[in-house]
């Protein structure tokens, strides 16, 4: 689909399934974002913090989730993007990205968005308002 105009309320964008989360993914995100909190990259530090192993940066998952909308920047932009971080993302988790159009009003497209892991648990959940030009 090239235009969001073709999308009906209640319908979803094509889901994206990410490759299993790797340590290198998180090292790259740490470097690109400047967030070097070691619970995201170093096992020992994660264990000291009471975690079974390193976890992904919440903002890594939020960043990934936004790419569902990247193909549509020729016709609008992400005006509002809000999420709650509700579950941890561990190494080798397989995350699926989803967006469902809830309503259209005055060229504003409101989506429910979520990142879901391989156990069908939501790890990030929120809303995007895509504003069409």
């Amino acid at each position: 689909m090239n235009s969001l105009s073709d999308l009906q309320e209640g319908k979803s964008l094509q889901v994206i399934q990410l490759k299993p989360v790797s340590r290198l993914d998180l090292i790259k995100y740490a470097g690109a974002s400047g967030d070097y909190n070691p619970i995201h990259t170093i096992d020992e530090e994660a264990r000291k913090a009471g975690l079974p192993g390193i976890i992904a940066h919440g903002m890594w998952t939020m960043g990934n989730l936004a790419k569902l909308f990247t193909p549509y920047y020729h016709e609008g932009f992400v005006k509002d993007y809000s999420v709650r971080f509700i579950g941890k993302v561990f190494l080798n988790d397989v995350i699926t990205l989803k967006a469902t159009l809830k309503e259209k009003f005055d060229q504003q497209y409101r989506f429910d968005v979520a990142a879901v892991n391989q156990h069908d648990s939501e790890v990030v959940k929120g809303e995007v308002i895509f504003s069409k030009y």
Partner: protein
Amino acid sequence: MFEQHIGKCSNKVKNIVERGAVKKFAEAIGDPHPIFIDEETGKKSRYQRNIAPPTFPRVFDFGVIDGLNLPKKGLIHGEQVFHYVRPLIVGEEIFCWLKVEDYVEKTGKSGKMGFLVLKGFGEDPTGEIIFTSKQTIIITEAVRKEMIV
């Protein structure tokens, strides 16, 4: 324990939406789309330049809030919000700062938790706000105790 900081702001810091930083960031979130990184695509787009992904402000320096000393470890990122007037354009200058919007404590299953809300602002050189952000940080009882010690 952070109530006295509510309303405080950081100093404003000049940031540049750097081409290399945008490319690295787009790659790190698995979204190396030409609208972010390819100059030709940017020129031909309605923006006439490349743009940055909506979570890119994670990269910006928002300055320091006087007296607000957050623990380096153990903070939990609970919620994140971005609001845009328009996308960020590669190459532009954005002046960023933070404000302590709220702090509340709630008692839950794992003891008393603190919820700190930091609001971020990004404005262009003419003073027009381009984006705002809101970050909710959860400070658990264990982390609070460590801070007092």
